């Protein structure tokens, strides 16, 4: 794109500014007014262009200048992203704090990547002057954090012959580390970073089948409604139902290679929570600080809406970039509804025809395009990487039939529906086992069978069916009372209650239970089902439910999740054995009564 000469502002309507710039293209960045506020062209109409401005437009006036910048909103991709927090335009918020204090001043331009910092670059083995490099090939590596090796890639739109490649050594991101001559004999100087327009998906070799579950350490997610690495999930729920907690738990405990936390139109304090707690937390898989593999993109609810709209693309572009380096990247986005509202606000200002609840007709397609950027791929460099997208949805009034929830439902494979009723009863995570689903269960089952226990699939199905049976029976009880139930049916209610308390409920604030390893997840599931079956057998021989409820192991089983940590599997298994034995005396007692009466 070629930058044209300056134009002038014609109209200012909230974040929407109309300028008379005849030659700009859609998506092009434009700088307006005395404060040099930046925005992007979203409509062209003859001589005029409509620009959505990323910052508050207060004090802009018709007549002020508008300068086209000749390029679209792009991310800087290179070392120094991890551990950082950026706004939706990739401005580093810590730098902004240094520059403008507690409040974000307008019109600041700050480079996303630190220009002064030196990185140790190690060229890839076997590469040198004369080598042919394809787009996306790995030129070398930089240790970005203690755990994360940053692979320096040839930009996806460059390929050719290496004219030269820098030797191992320390470089800043602006230094040229390679020259590539392309087929047209144009030379491209390559640095440790390159830019990529955020609204364009980064290319890859080919799509690959996602096959491995993302382990989040949350039982109701992993055991009941699994997500695969490279999958798409949604977490819808009314306010206070627990969307943010679910996403923060995933950000803390999942076995992702890289974690991107996108705060999109939500609370500032929730980001602070991550910034203040993550540096103290260690990754359960690597033992390293969580912050080393995490980066945050934040456009809180009080920050301008247009940058909020852009932020999800910024986030997913950063995700794709690490995917292209061969990582399994997870991005949690809280909340996609706030992004949709930003879109709606702009559409409204443009007087576009609203279709549902004020949302524009293109809501569904934009949502789909965004989620389409998730997936497991073979990268241009030949390795494998994935982007998993997990979006919170905040339906107005908690009503899942509203547009954002219903369109999302058509796109995602894993749907973690949060229930207001469960949350009100403090059943956390409030994931509703009847409303939620996962299209990945069969694939996940293979992994669990190979890595944890071959009975996983059967046990999971059994537990779900017990929960559903119990819901059915609870409806009957609510109509005619518990007396209508047989002892076996009453035991179903007790068994389900045991599963809810001992397995499904998992407090994020419980130090022992906040993360549950797959092994412990299965052991608890197995133990509780075993308990149910043992009791069921006794009921068949005439033991009253009341007698069973008096068994002290029941209370202990409900608490087992908080008593036996991931490191105490031996003790947990010993307890499971104890559970089996606890029923023995009753068995003997009733078996003998039967014999006597016979």
């Amino acid at each position, binding site marked *: 794109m070629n930058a044209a000469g300056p134009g002038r502002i014609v109209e200012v309507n909230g974040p929407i500014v109309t300028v008379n710039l005849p030659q700009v293209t859609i998506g092009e960045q434009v700088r307006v007014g005395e404060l040099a506020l930046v925005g992007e062209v979203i409509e062209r109409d003859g001589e005029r262009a409509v620009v959505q401005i990323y910052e508050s437009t207060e004090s802009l006036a018709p007549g002020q200048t508008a300068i086209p910048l000749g390029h679209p909103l792009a991310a800087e991709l290179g070392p120094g992203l991890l551990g950082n927090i950026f706004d939706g335009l990739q401005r580093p918020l810590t730098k902004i704090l240094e520059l403008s204090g507690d*409040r974000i001043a307008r019109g600041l331009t700050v480079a996303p990547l630190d220009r002064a910092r030196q990185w140790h670059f190690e060229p890839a083995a076997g590469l040198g002057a004369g080598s042919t490099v394809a787009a996306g090939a790995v030129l070398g590596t930089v240790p970005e954090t203690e755990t994360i090796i940053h692979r320096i890639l040839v930009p996806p739109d460059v390929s050719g012959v290496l004219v030269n490649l820098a030797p191992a050594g320390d470089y800043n991101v602006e230094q040229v580390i390679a020259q590539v001559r392309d087929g047209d004999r144009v030379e491209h100087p390559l640095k440790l970073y390159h830019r990529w327009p955020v609204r364009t998906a980064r290319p890859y070799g080919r799509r690959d089948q996602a096959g491995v579950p993302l382990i989040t350490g949350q039982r109701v997610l992993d055991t009941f409604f699994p997500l695969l690495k490279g999958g798409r999930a949604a977490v819808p729920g009314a306010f*206070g139902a627990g969307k943010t907690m679910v996403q923060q738990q995933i950000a803390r405990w999942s076995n992702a290679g890289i974690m991107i936390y996108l705060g999109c*139109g939500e609370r500032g304090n929730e980001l602070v929570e991550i*910034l*203040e707690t993550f540096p103290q937390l260690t990754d359960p898989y690597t033992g390293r600080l969580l912050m080393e593999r995490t980066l945050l993109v934040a456009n809180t609810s009080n920050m301008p809406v247009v940058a909020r709209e852009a932020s999800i693309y910024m986030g997913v572009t950063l995700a794709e970039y690490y995917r292209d380096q061969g990582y399994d990247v997870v991005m949690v986005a809280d909340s996609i509804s706030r992004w949709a509202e930003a879109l709606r606000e702009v559409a409204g200002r443009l007087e576009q025809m609203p279709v549902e609840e*004020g949302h524009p007709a293109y809501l569904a397609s934009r949502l789909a395009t965004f989620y389409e950027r998730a997936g497991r791929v073979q990268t241009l460099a030949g390795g494998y990487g994935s982007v998993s997208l997990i979006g919170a949805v905040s339906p107005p009034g908690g009503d899942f039939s509203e547009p954002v929830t219903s369109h999302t439902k058509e796109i995602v494979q894993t749907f973690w529906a949060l229930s207001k009723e469960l949350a009100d009863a403090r059943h956390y995570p409030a994931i509703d086992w009847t409303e939620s689903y996962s299209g990945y269960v069969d694939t996940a089952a293979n992994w669990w069978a190979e890595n944890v226990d071959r009975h996983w699939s059967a046990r999971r199905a059994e537990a779900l069916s017990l929960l559903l049976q119990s819901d059915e029976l609870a409806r009957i009880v609510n109509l005619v009372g*518990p007396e209508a139930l047989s002892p076996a049916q009453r035991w179903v209610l007790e068994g389900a209650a045991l599963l809810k308390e001992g397995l499904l409920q998992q407090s994020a604030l419980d130090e022992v239970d906040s993360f549950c390893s797959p092994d412990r997840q299965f052991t608890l599931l197995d133990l509780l089902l075993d308990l149910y079956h043992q009791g069921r057998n006794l009921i068949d021989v005439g033991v009253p439910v009341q007698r069973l409820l008096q068994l*002290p192991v029941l209370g202990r089983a409900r608490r087992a999740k908080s008593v036996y940590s991931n490191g105490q599997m031996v003790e947990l298994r010993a307890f499971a054995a104890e559970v089996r034995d606890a029923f023995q005396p009753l068995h003997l007692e009733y078996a003998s009564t039967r014999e006597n009466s016979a």
Partner: protein
Amino acid sequence: MREKDYRLSSAVRGGLLFVRGVPGVALGDRVAVRDHAGRIRNGQVIRTSDEVVLVQVFEGTDGLDLERTWTRFLEQPFEIGLSRELMGRIFNGVGQPRDDRPPLVSGIRRNVNGSPMNPVARTRPREFIQTGISTIDGLYSLVRGQKLPIFSGPGLPHNRLAAQIVRQSRIIGAQARFAVVFAAMGVSYADARFFQEDFERDGVLGNVVMYINLADDPTIERLILPRTALTAAEYLAYDLGMHVMVILTDITNYAEALREVAMARGDVPARKGYPGYLYSDLAEIFERAGRIRNRGGSITMMPVLSMPSDDITHPIPDLTGYITEGQIVLSRELHGQGIYPPVDLLPSLSRVMKDGIGAGETREDHPRVANQIYASYARAIEVRNLASIIGTEDLSETDRQYLEFAKLIEKRLVTQGEDEDRSIVETLTIAWQLLSLLPPDELTRVREADLAKYHRREQSAEVP
């Protein structure tokens, strides 16, 4: 130069003036509108092009005609003056005195819109505020810098509760410098008077700044009033280092004013006629609560809103709940039973209490006790619903204990006097007395050690 010019407007509609032929007016600028009687009204530019400028008039456009209304563009943003002399004063929504005293003389001027706080400048709210109210302290603890609204309805005692919180709130052990910013939008004269007298009786009037827009004052002024009030609160908190409690009442009147202007502008409605930007607009207000790293002061915010038709899914409570850090929901049913404060335990929530309670803050068992009360009460309500269908005869022994538990929670823990200031230890003691009504095996949210220490089965009989 334009500043001197008075202009005629070309149209007037629903609080908005349309002025033609003044190119180059900046968005957000202040406007002085002189009406036929020579009185000046305050306006702000909300849309601007070379052809037409749209002005929102805070005093409303009632009585304005096109022939004798003159508009002057002041070429300055909407700012208010600030100084220590704020304290004890009463203003209207645009910061003009309402107390027959002279305007503030001040060098410091701030834009009422503020500018967004950088999230990395924040620090998490984490200091427990003892309000002396058991439901709040025990179950939905308020912490410094939190935004915790009261969801109420007409006829419910939200004002009495808010006043009691203001009166009794203090941070255990610390006698910090505090201030109250009271922002009233569209409230009745009686309600405004109630607060004023309460502050007076309490002897804190000198620490209170009031921004008042009464029910018969212009509605559009309600749009700027919370912004003006929060600009003052920010000055008190971050310039003067005070701990500020902001009461915003009633958010519903604010949102209705916003809807009115949105309609007049022809904005696309989202739900129930409210514009799609209601969420972001409310967030601009509510997110001004908080704490800033390395700053002494804080802004704790308690918005009050009435839920239209007691419907918590109505856009106003709904969007508020999505932004604030919890909510205290009042129940008409409990109120009908004469219970004060009628806090509805299940839908109420405090999201940031976890950082402000427990060992070192309140008491080590506090988080688990709170959890146990919610869980047991939720169970008890289930039993109560069941009993209302099948009667109590068929209930198990344990279920009957739950019924008793629910009743006593409402009577002993929830109910308290308007002047009753309970310490957190008293609250926790009551909580354990009530939990002791239930068999220890039912109490899985607390630890075995908690049970050993606090669960007193034998005492449960003594609970009146």
